[in-house]
């Protein structure tokens, strides 16, 4: 079997508070292959962004820290790499797109300058070549009159264009792995559709792997090949997109699907009772979803169920094992 581009194994990320370590990401294993778009879904605070930040080496020593596990990029453990090695990969081989395009752009530099920084730093490209790369990256993300637009500063761009500029910055290093953290959440649906198309084209053209973090199940259905569902720091279900939407097994996934309003439904929704646990109140043992789960029984309080099943579908639930 070929090795995946990104292979996260048993990753835990913790926060130390009052001398106690609270795990916000617990034993997460997830892989992204070349040419694959993998969705990571969950509600706010479930640890999905933290997982991506750990891959980028953005979790410092305090207050958050990686408490265990491996993050392998092309077989190399990023957690053992030096700062210099990480710096060489970050922005170049591994790029990240953040949710808010306004805070990830510097307001006082031109868009072109900020994108050109990527080839200048990572490839040592001379200024004119770096500028040409920046303009072509802007063209790739569908910005008209890119050479003129590159001379503008962020406030002269609309929200959708800024997000495209941030994506262009990600593309400028020709990354093998792109981590996109809620790249369309702040955008209108028509712009969202364009950006998602752009990510798919990028994958088709360059064969890069993409980890797409989102809370929007519709976005996952339209964009991803495979999807992992996170709850309270753990992956509770993982499957191909087709399989997950056809046969959601975990009661949380099932609940999410029923709770989300769609154009096909009218009238009352079926909410999941209660609310997701805070970092402080994630139970130390057992399934973190059990208090909101209609199927929970005593076994669920004692031991966290392992993520098991076949290659196409794995679920962490004592009551809803794959094939049962």
């Amino acid at each position: 079997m070929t090795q995946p581009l990104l292979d996260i194994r048993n990753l835990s990320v913790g926060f130390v508070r009052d001398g106690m370590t609270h795990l916000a990401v617990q034993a997460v294993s997830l892989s992204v292959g070349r040419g694959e778009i993998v969705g990571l879904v969950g509600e706010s605070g479930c640890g999905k962004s933290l997982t991506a930040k750990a891959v980028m080496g953005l979790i410092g020593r305090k207050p958050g820290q990686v408490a265990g596990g491996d993050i392998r990029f092309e077989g190399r453990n990023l957690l053992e790499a030096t700062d210099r090695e990480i710096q060489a990969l970050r922005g170049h081989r591994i790029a990240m797109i953040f949710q808010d395009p306004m805070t990830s752009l510097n307001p006082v530099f031109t868009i072109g300058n900020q994108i050109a920084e990527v080839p200048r730093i990572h490839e040592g490209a001379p200024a004119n070549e770096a500028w040409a790369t920046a303009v072509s990256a802007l063209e790739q993300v569908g910005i008209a009159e890119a050479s003129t637009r590159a001379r503008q500063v962020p406030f002269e761009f609309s929200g959708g264009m800024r997000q495209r500029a941030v994506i262009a910055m990600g593309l400028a290093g020709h990354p093998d792995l792109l981590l996109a953290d809620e790249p369309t959440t702040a955008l209108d649906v028509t712009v969202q559709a364009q950006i998602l198309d752009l990510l798919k084209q990028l994958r088709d053209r360059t064969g890069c792997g993409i980890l797409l973090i989102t809370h929007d199940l519709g976005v996952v259905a339209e964009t991803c090949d495979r999807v992992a569902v996170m709850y309270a720091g753990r992956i509770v279900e993982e499957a191909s997109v087709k399989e997950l939407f056809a046969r959601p097994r975990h009661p949380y996934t099932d609940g999410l699907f029923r709770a989300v309003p769609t154009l096909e439904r009218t009238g009352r929704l079926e909410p999941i009772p209660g609310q997701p646990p805070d970092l402080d109140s994630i139970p130390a043992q057992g399934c973190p979803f059990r208090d909101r789960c209609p199927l929970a029984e005593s076994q669920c309080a004692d031991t966290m169920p392992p993520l098991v099943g076949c290659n196409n579908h794995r679920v962490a639930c004592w009551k809803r094992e794959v094939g049962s």
Partner: protein
Amino acid sequence: MTSSPLLEVRDLTRDFVVRGGLGRVAKRFRAVDGVSFDLHRGDVLGIVGESGSGKSTLVRMITRLIAPTRGEVRLDGHDLLALSGSTLRAERRRFQMIFQDPYASLNPRWNMRRILDEPLRAHGLKSDGAARIASVLDQVGLPTTFLNRYPHELSGGQRQRLNIARALIPGPDLLVADEPVAALDVSIQAQTLNLLLDLQRDRGLTLLFIAHDLAVIKTLCNRVGVMSRGKLVDLGEAEDVFKNPTSDYTRTLLDAIPRMPARADE
């Protein structure tokens, strides 16, 4: 014919002036352009549109938070725009608003009791205050034991329930909600939408509801208006607008929504 509408909006328009250097008027920008509609008692009208389409400006004019450039707003036949001072304050009791950010719209230094007490004080309803507070808390599903809690001690969903309770407490005829569920997670969003549906059904509440999410509008509203560049480009019964949109813009908007495939077990 049916009874007269609770809310009549006619040709409502708002221009913003963009200033150039030295305070010169550089250009005028029409945020809302000649919007007219009626809202009948018990109706839930959803206004949908992309960012910058003018939907928030529209409801801010209707709730007298900003002044229109021209147009009319009538609540139960009374000209809302002609009111000022104490008469406006008195009339405000009849239309209340829920805002998008459930945290920013609550005073962090006030506990729940004080937050709910304030509208009663403002509208001179203190005499039966305790009963009113108990009643709205029951309606929105917050326990009275929470009354001493501060906003930071509440979850996102509970904060939005508190916002809804605060809007309901003076007994308004019209509730205006600007993206009340946009900041909430899916499981909490569903709880809040169900609460609004129940309130509408049980109290016959009239609701003007703003959202960018068409699926949310579909869940809650029986009438829909679609805004684009300050104009109301579609208006009608929700079923009709979703099935047979009259404007190309509405069709584009509907086509752009990512769809979830059907489940195998349903």
